[in-house]
Structures are given as structure tokens and as C-alpha cells.
């Protein structure tokens, strides 16, 4: 009996160890792929070939332009609702002088980069990664295998660059829309509030806050660009490109985004 119990415990421990090692290896691969993509993105050789440049430009366009309209509409609606809630609450408590600061901090600094990243991940990055994986599986079924370098440079880099660019552009545009809506909500169409408004915005964007905001948005874009691609480039235990779980990939991406958000919050407010 005791021997059986020991063997069961040993088996479960082995299973847990294997899972932990696999997870650790998986995260290591993500980090390694991120480093490789960043190196490739910074290398001029990646853009020498005209065909490669065309591919990157096409991906950038396809990752950004179709999402732009609806994302801006959605972002404007969400921003308007949040701005109205914050301003009305602040006014009702006699704290209207803090309303703009709260709006800029919550909306522009925290929420917009987060939902821009998640929007691009759900609408472009993850579906695209699945498509690439399916095509890779099809190619392998046809007996065509690609080298890692080739896969990185010709397939993953354009998608990663496009996703990162899309996150950055959508976040930037959405921030501008939110700032304009904040002004219009608080001051209306009068131009006389511009000075006070600029002062309030400038008060929020101190040097550390601006730096943290920029880094956070950059890391969000990198996470959205790389984490789904890492799963794409990763073979199964039997060496094939079979379809993985969407939820697992989303959870992995979300955990990275959440980690970046928590670190940025710590940097901003502690």
C-alpha cells in the first residue's frame, strides 16, 4: 500500500515537474523569439530585399487600416462615457478641478494602451498567427520545410512589425481622440479653456510618467506582436504545426500584458 502511494506521488511529481519544465521552456522560447525578432527588426538587412519591404508594408497596412475606423468609433464611445462619468462625479463632489487630471490618468495613461493592445491582438495578431500556423502545417504536409531564419525573416517579422505598429498607431490616435473629447466635454467649443487644459495635461505628463507611458505602450505592442507568433513558430511534441488552444494563447498574452501594466502602475504610483 505504502509502496503504491509512493509510486503515485512520484508519478504526480514527475508529471508536475514535466509540466513546469515545459512551461518554463515555452516562456524561454517566447523570450528568445522576442529577442530574435527585435534584432531582425533593427537589422537593415531585413529591409534590403524589395519583396520583403513590400511584404512588411502590406502587413502594416492590413494590420492597421481595416481596424482604424471601428476602433476609433469604439474608442470614442468608451472615452465619452468614461469622461462624462468622471466629470459629472467630480463636479457633484465639488472636485471639478481634478476631473481633467483623473480623465487623463485613467483613460489616456492606463486604459487606451491596454484596450488598443487587446483589440489588435484579438482582431489581427492571433487570427493571423493561426493562419500562418495552418499554412506552415500545409507546407509541411506538402513536404516543404523552412529554416528557422527563413521563417523568422520572411514570415514572422512582417506580422510582428505590423502588429506592433498597429498597436502604437491605434493607441496614439485614440489618445488624441480622448484628449479632444475631454476638452470638448469640459469646456465645450470655447477656445478660452485651452490654456488651462494644456496646463492640466502638462501637469500629468511629467518626465517619469511620460517615459513609463511610452515604455508601457511599446511593451504592449511587443507583447501583442511576439507572444502569438511564438506559439505559431513552436512545433508540437511530435514536431508538427497542429492547431493550439486559442484560450491558452490569449491567457498567455493577457498575462504578459497584465505584467507590463502592473509594473507600469508600480512605476507611476509607488
Amino acid at each position, binding site marked *: 500500500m505504502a509502496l503504491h502511494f509512493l509510486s503515485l506521488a512520484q508519478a504526480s511529481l514527475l508529471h508536475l515537474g514535466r509540466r513546469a519544465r515545459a512551461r518554463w521552456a515555452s516562456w524561454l522560447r517566447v523570450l528568445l523569439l522576442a529577442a530574435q525578432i527585435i534584432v531582425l527588426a533593427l537589422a537593415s538587412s531585413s529591409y534590403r530585399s524589395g519583396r520583403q519591404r513590400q511584404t512588411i508594408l502590406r502587413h502594416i497596412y492590413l494590420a492597421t487600416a481595416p481596424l482604424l475606423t471601428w476602433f476609433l468609433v469604439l474608442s470614442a464611445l468608451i472615452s465619452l462615457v468614461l469622461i462624462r462619468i468622471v466629470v459629472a462625479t467630480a463636479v457633484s463632489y465639488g*472636485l471639478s478641478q481634478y476631473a481633467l487630471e483623473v480623465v487623463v490618468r485613467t483613460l489616456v495613461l492606463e486604459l487606451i494602451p491596454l484596450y488598443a493592445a487587446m483589440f489588435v491582438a484579438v482582431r489581427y495578431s492571433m487570427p493571423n498567427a493561426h493562419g500562418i500556423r495552418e499554412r506552415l502545417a500545409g507546407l509541411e504536409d506538402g513536404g*516543404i520545410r523552412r529554416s*528557422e531564419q527563413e521563417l523568422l525573416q520572411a514570415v514572422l517579422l512582417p506580422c510582428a512589425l505590423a502588429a506592433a505598429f498597429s498597436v502604437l498607431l491605434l493607441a*496614439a*490616435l485614440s*489618445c*488624441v481622440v480622448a484628449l479632444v473629447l475631454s476638452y470638448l466635454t469640459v469646456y465645450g467649443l470655447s477656445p478660452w479653456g485651452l490654456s488651462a487644459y494644456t496646463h492640466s495635461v*502638462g501637469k500629468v505628463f511629467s518626465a517619469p510618467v511620460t517615459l513609463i507611458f511610452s515604455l508601457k505602450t511599446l511593451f504592449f505592442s511587443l507583447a501583442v506582436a511576439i507572444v502569438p507568433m511564438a506559439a505559431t513558430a513552436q512545433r508540437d511534441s511530435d514536431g508538427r504545426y497542429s492547431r493550439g488552444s486559442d484560450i491558452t494563447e490569449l491567457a498567455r498574452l493577457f498575462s504578459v500584458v497584465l505584467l507590463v501594466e502592473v509594473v507600469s502602475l508600480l512605476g507611476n504610483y509607488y
Partner: protein
Amino acid sequence: MNESPPPTTVRPADQSPQVVKNLELKAALLLLLMMALVLASGAYVLYARGFFERTQQLVLLADDSEGVLVGMDMTFAGFPIGRVARIELADDGNARILIDVKSRDARWLRSSSVFTMERGLVGGTRIRAFSGVLNDPPLENGAVRQILRGDALAELPRLAASVSELLENLTALTAADAALLASLANLQTVTEKLKGPQGALGVLLGNEAEARKLVERTSALLARADVLTGRLDSLVANADRQVFGQAARPHGVAEQGGLVSETRTTVKQLNGLLAEVRGSLQKVDAVLVDAQAIAGNTRAATTDLGALRSDVEATLRKVEHLVNEVNRKWPFARETEIRLP
């Protein structure tokens, strides 16, 4: 992925490329938009932070810089005119708050300006400038001033102590053996008595017997008052009859006299008497006219008497002079002159 790859042709990612017209132009526009957004945002933030604005420095000294943050505003009349650039600890243990004041707003700061640091119950610390005399010389660049502190939070312990005392008093007031509770019980008893058959009288006199006695006495008093009122009516009727003479006699015969009619007769008689007096006075006036004439004659006679008197006096002086002459010339006259040797 580390397995040796078989020979393949290098193909880009998407094997089923969608045809995008003017791809390069559109992608370049997106890249340009991105660049413009980043540059414009950076420039706007720098402008909002006052990077392009000329400033002058002001140093405020405080014994405690708690609540002061880099980047917070210094206001004048509610307008932000400066911003905390740095906070440092001086050699004497005081906090030095270095403030960048916009050059175009520095005119509001004068050499006599006062600076305060306030901590409210809501919101952060506020630094404010007050300039009472705007004709004073402007505050020089790098000026060092002491800051005055006002802390609303410092009042909180005293406020808490007062509230605690108030609560204790309230607890004592509302305790089971408190005077307030006893008073309320008594008030309840009183209201119950008020609702009883004797009402407020029962409350005032204490018991039912006294209240009944008071009611009986009051009834007797009212009866006597009724009788008295009848007598007063009779008295008024008599007075009416005496004064006006119009009242009917008990047998229905109207009385013709009365004080008023007699008075009227008397007034008529007085009028006649006054007419006679007026005639007598006219006669007296004539007599007085005569007397006035007599007095005028007397005044003239008195004037003549004065002249007569002066004549007599002159005659007497002459007689006296004559007597003196006779005495001087007479042989036995005395020598009146004294001759000196």
C-alpha cells in the same frame, strides 16, 4: 525548427496576398501619420510642461516640505504662475523649494509678496502667492523668501477631541438614568393628565378635589358678576337720566330736565353776561383815554416845574453870593486868606 531544412524557395509570409492598390503610398501615409502623431504629442507635452517658456527662479524656505511635490503649481489669484522644479534640504535643516516662475507672470510677484503653503482636508498641498502692493519693486530672479504654513489637518486632533467630548455629553444625556429621560417621563405624565377629565386644571392644581372646588368657586363668582352687571346697568340708566334727562320714568313719563339742558341755559346766561361786560369795558376804554390826556397835561406841568426849580436854585445861589459879600465886607469879618512870609 532546428532540424536540417530541405531546399526550399524563400517566400514571404502570406502565400495568398491580397492585392492592395497603391500599397506603398498608403503604408507610407500610415508611417507618416504615426511619426507626425509621435512628434506632435512630444511637442505638445513639452509645451504643456513649459519647456519653451522663459522662467525665473524663486526659492521658498519652509521648515517642513511635506506634501510638496515636484511639478505642483504655485498660484496667484487662482492662476498657476509657477511650478515646483526641485525640493532640496538646506544646510540649516530647512527645506528649499525651488520654483520656476514664468517670466510673463513674474510681474505679479513683488518684493513685498507673501507666500503661503496650505494643506486642506481635500486635495493636496497648495502654494499660493499674495501681492498686496503692486507698486512695489518686482521680485528679483533667484529671490529667497520664507513660506508661511497653514495646515487644516493640524486642526483635526482638536476637532476629534471636541467631537469625542460632544459624544460623551450626548451619551450622558441619553443614558437610562439621565435627567433628560426623567424629564421626558414627567412630560408624558403631564400630557396624560392633560388628556384626562380635569384637563389643564388638574395639571395646575395637582388633584381632582381642588380642581372641582375651583370650578365651583368660579361658578359662584360668575353668578355674582352677573348680579353686579345688572346693577351696573341700572346705574348707567340713572346716570343717563341725570345727565341727559331723556330717560323714561318708571311710570312711562319722560323727564324734562337733566344736567345737559341746565348747562345749556347757563351758557346762554353767560353769553348775556359777557355782552354786558363788553359794554362796561368800552366805557372803561373811554375813561382810560381821558386819563391818558390828564397824564399828558401832568407831564407838561412837570416840565414847567423843572424850569421853575432851576430859577429858584439860581436865585438862591445869588442870595448866597450876596450874603458872602456882606460877610466879607463887614468889619468883623474874619481874615480868610493866609499870607505866607
